[in-house]
């Protein structure tokens, strides 16, 4: 049918280009943060991430000269290099903050007290003076340099493996993991039995219970915060892992029951009735037939619940994180970093990517189940 109109080719091209534009628009922000997390502090601050691959031109802060003094005739000479990383080229330099680009590389700057300084293209300097500079403050040099693009894993090393770093993500990462895994497994167990009863057992009030589940599907969990926190404090759980596991279980149940019931109700009737005729009990039918057959639906829900608990901020803040901050999760830690480290993109980008990496991995490897779950889970 595409070949009826003669314009098939131009139309295909048009859709291709439009799609490509949309995809690029959607990817652009994420890629930006990803690239930034591998750049050095200096380069993040001196240019946009989109120019990360080109030569970086930047104005450096003041560098105070330092080095061994050598006597050369009646001159006292200090020589050295301004930069540690190779490949940095000086474009211009100066000796005062008012005129930081006064000199070209190779120029000789005359300073007070008969001192001279020169800086060459590679950042090597030579300072001369008529009297010894021992114990005196040496002059400062301002430079504008161009350096090759530089990528580093240091940001990740700092945020994950540096024991000195009190803002590191390692602890929060394990806390998040500790919250997530039980909060994913427990609701599946509880929901599967209920879903089986709602799908395959006959009893009065079944339709009503399904309606109740659908209703609870959209109840905002905001309503549950204070009553449940009160309840947890009353029964002595307080704020902690147990509380957050229970809360996530409760909040995840409606979707779990709904998804699993819909899937189980679609399983072929013959299998179950044959098993009944052969004398299997409901418990056996459930464990040996329904559960294995429902694997796709179980996987769908598990992925949803995993993503939701991993990415959650509100439930963790209310039910888990106490004043000691020992149980902070990654989302909370990132929000705190946003407050205290507003402009430190090397820290923010890295912290965010540590937290995003796992869901993205799950997403790309198990996308099939996620799509299937979405299609079954939206109330029709």
């Amino acid at each position, binding site marked *: 049918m595409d070949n009826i*109109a003669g314009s098939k080719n131009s139309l*295909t091209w048009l859709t291709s280009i439009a*799609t490509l534009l*949309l*995809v690029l628009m*959607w*990817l*652009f922000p*994420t890629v930006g943060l990803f690239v930034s997390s591998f750049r050095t502090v200096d380069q993040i601050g001196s240019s*946009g991430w989109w120019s990360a691959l080109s030569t970086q031109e930047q104005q450096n802060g003041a560098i105070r000269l330092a080095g061994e003094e050598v006597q050369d005739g009646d001159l006292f000479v200090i020589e050295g290099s301004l930069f540690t990383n190779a490949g940095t080229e000086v474009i211009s330099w100066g000796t005062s903050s008012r005129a930081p680009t006064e000199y070209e590389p190779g120029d000789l700057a005359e300073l007070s007290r008969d001192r001279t300084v020169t800086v060459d293209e590679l950042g090597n300097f030579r300072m001369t003076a008529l009297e010894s500079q021992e114990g005196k403050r040496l002059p400062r040099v301002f430079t504008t340099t161009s350096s090759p693009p530089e990528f580093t894993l240091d940001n990740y090393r700092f945020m994950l493996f540096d024991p000195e770093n009190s803002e590191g993500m390692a602890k929060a990462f*394990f806390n998040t993991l*500790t919250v997530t*895994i039980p909060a994913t497994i*427990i609701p599946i*167990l*509880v*929901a599967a039995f*209920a879903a089986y*009863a709602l799908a395959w*057992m*006959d*009893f009065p009030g079944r339709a009503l219970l399904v309606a109740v589940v*659908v209703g*609870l599907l*959209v*109840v*905002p969990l*905001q*309503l*549950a*915060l*204070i*009553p*449940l926190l009160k309840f947890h404090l009353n029964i002595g759980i307080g704020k902690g892992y147990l509380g957050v596991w229970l809360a996530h279980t*409760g909040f995840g*149940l409606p979707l779990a029951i709904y998804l699993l019931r819909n899937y189980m109700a679609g399983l072929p009737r013959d299998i179950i009735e044959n098993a009944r005729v052969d004398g299997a*009990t409901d*418990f056996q039918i459930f464990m040996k037939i329904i559960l294995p057959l429902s694997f796709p639906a179980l996987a769908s829900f598990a992925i949803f619940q995993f*993503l939701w608990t991993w*990415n*959650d*901020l*509100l439930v963790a803040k*209310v039910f888990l994180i106490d004043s000691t901050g020992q149980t902070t999760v990654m*989302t909370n830690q*990132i*929000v705190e970093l*946003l407050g205290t480290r507003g402009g430190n*993109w090397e820290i*923010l*980008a890295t912290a*965010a990517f540590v*937290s*995003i990496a796992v869901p*993205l991995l*799950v*997403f790309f490897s198990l996308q099939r189940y*996620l799509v299937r779950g979405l299609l079954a889970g*939206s*109330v029709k």
Partner: protein
Amino acid sequence: MHPAVLGLVTIAVAVVTCVGYFYLSNLFLDKVLFPAKGPNAGRNINRANMIRPWLFLFPAFAALGLYLAYPVFETLRLSVLDRDQGNAFVGLANYQQMVQEPKFWEAVRNNALWLLIVPALSTAFGLLVAQLTDRLSWGNIAKSLIFMPMAISFVGAAVIWKLVYEARPIETEQIGVFNAILVYFGASEPITFLTVPFWNNLFLMIILIWIQTGFAMVILSAALRGIPEETVEAAIVDGANPFQIFFKIKIPQIVPTIVVVWTTITIATLKVFDIVFAMTNGQWETQVMANYMYDKLFRANDWGVGSASAIIIMLMVLPILVWNVRQVRKEMR
């Protein structure tokens, strides 16, 4: 005990308790309470089968009742009490106090804006992508990439977009892409996007649209695939152009799905909290209901007004809840 160990122990305990409960309660029912032998075997089997569903349902519905149904009523109760007066009944005083606060009306206005804009644009973009990728050879890759933000947390998305909106003094290089473009085209000052009242709401909404478009696309793309080929073919034979086919043949057939997508995104929009909390925390006139409620509950420690605002959120969800329940009841009949 180390939390990770506690976690593993909890999983083990939960699995054993769960399976144990179901196994033992079924065993008790069949062997002790109503054994399927003796003179009343037939009657006993029937009785056991009447009770069994409730054994299966009990744990899940007990948890649902405690964690979702009870809080609704408890919140309603708390919203008419005053904690400072020893939980005395104060009628609608909390609600009165709330409607006198300008921040509340700001939150209501902003929530209304979010509700108008986010579901509409997410659904529109989702539909656009679904249609564009429908017959594209690399359509699945494109869809997968647009779907990706779904996996990213709201907090992660907030960091991602904060970099996009970043503004730096005019003397230095702009590292946020929007300001880089503005300065490139000659703007004299970069714009701090998040502090411009009213418009900053739109900049926050973009984040949610960016996340929800993938969801809309997945559902709508499946719906487009489900349209019977004959209707499209008949339209082509009658000389319809691609736009007519899309708007007059395809869209009318997927209206029910569009409604589902729209309402689902509406629910997500109503509850939006993390994005505002992480980006502006309601400053510069970006307050929304969920964040207003969090402020009242956990910063001002005012449970009365906090609960009252939670009830407002519930009231906004209620029409969709009723509609969903009615749809399902219709389907089950």
